[in-house]
């Protein structure tokens, strides 16, 4: 899956969960910069990502998903491992 498609899908999930406009999600968005992205919302984000992309993430990966870029990078690795 192309990077831009993954990023847009993740942004759509984030916009819905965090209740913000998708246009207000910059590519550089990080957990530390968004109050709504707390530990509980992070778990909900992971649930939605696993469901959307049909992946199963490991605890270490979940802990490293602290920014939009990190989420997309980890997701791409998972998707490529699944479909090399």
């Amino acid at each position, binding site marked *: 899956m192309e990077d831009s498609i993954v990023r847009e899908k993740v942004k759509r999930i984030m916009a819905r969960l965090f209740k913000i406009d998708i246009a207000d999600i910059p590519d550089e968005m990080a957990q530390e910069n968004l109050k709504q992205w*707390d*530990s*509980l919302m992070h*778990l*909900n984000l*992971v*649930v939605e990502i*696993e*469901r959307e992309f049909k992946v*199963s*993430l*490991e*605890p*270490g990966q*979940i802990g490293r998903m602290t920014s939009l870029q990190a989420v997309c990078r980890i997701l791409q690795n998972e998707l490529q491992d699944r479909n090399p």
Partner: protein
Amino acid sequence: METPCISGSARFTIHHTAIAVTDLAASAQAYGILGFQSSGKVVDPVQKVEVVLLRCGNEPGIELVKPIGEDSPVSGFLSRNGPGPYHICYEVDDLDSAITLLRRNGFVQVSDLCPAQAFDGRRICFLFNRDMGLVELLEMKT
């Protein structure tokens, strides 16, 4: 022994309910009014919590959980909700199979398997479900 819930080959028995608190002694005293007896405090540096277990007869226990430091996973819960139920722990006879079953059914595994100081080093694992919240699995005594 409680009657377990059975899903496929996995058996889930409620072991305890964890309550996030800010003051272990005060909460233990409050539960004492309901007849619960408290154990000594256990410090779990892996989970970054201090724990006191409460028992009342053969009922499932209550685990009072106080965070150690702001980076404890319990700190965010407390600041958001105040003291209250944090998770339910289920004892399972086959931890690995139970984790596999839950992950196949939409649960996210949020911690690696690790020994729990408060439960004689038995392995535990935390999972999250959007419609249930946080769940702890505890492997049965061998």
